[in-house]
């Protein structure tokens, strides 16, 4: 079946450094990938998305890279700030046209001052 997995459950970085959170997926038929940020006690918040016809997409301080050859997705956060501390989830669309998303287990990003 389809799956989405994150490489590291926890990532600790120094404030001001760049962060890279990685994700792998199993079904190359997926067309759409999303990164969410979830702060403690809150619902996941949309960060950035990318479709399979792109390799890279940039937002404000964030970049998503999609490598379809190795089925790998990454989120890069530039100049990481304490407010970036959260759990980050990658997700992709499920098989068929159902609108359902398949989520990874999440990576906890800890920013050290």
């Amino acid at each position, binding site marked *: 079946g389809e799956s989405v997995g994150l490489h590291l459950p926890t990532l600790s970085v120094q404030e001001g450094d760049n962060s890279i959170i990685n994700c792998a997926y199993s079904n190359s038929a997926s*067309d*759409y990938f*999303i990164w*969410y940020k979830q702060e403690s*006690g*809150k*619902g*996941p*918040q*949309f960060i950035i*998305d990318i*479709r399979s016809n792109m390799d890279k997409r940039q937002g404000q301080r964030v970049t998503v890279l999609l490598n379809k050859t190795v089925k790998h997705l990454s989120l890069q956060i530039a100049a990481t700030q304490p407010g970036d501390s959260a759990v980050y*989830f990658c*997700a992709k*669309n499920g098989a068929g*046209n*159902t*609108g*359902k*998303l398949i*989520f*990874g*287990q*999440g990576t906890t990003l800890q920013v050290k001052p």
Partner: protein
Amino acid sequence: SQTIHQWPATLVQPVGSPLSLECTVEGTSNPNLYWYRQAAGRGLQLLFYSVGIGQISSEVPQNLSASRPQDRQFILSSKKLLLSDSGFYLCAWTRGAFGIETQYFGPGTRLLVL
């Protein structure tokens, strides 16, 4: 702009008691609606989704049920809660007509069953 509301924010219930969690969406029509459960430190498990009023699809067999009495209202219920029902319940929506869309999440309801 669209907003999604959930209530209550926190709930403590005894085992065997009933449950009703509510989710409403504003600023859009005919959304697709989703209920997820998130155990502590874990990912999101899809419980139910709905493409329209009265239309519910269940993803995981359990003692929970969902209903959609109005276009922008989604309710999660149980007749008798179990200890294992404890968790963080999230409602989400996407624009109608299934396609490849971003899901937007509500603030969640923290449920503790004792």
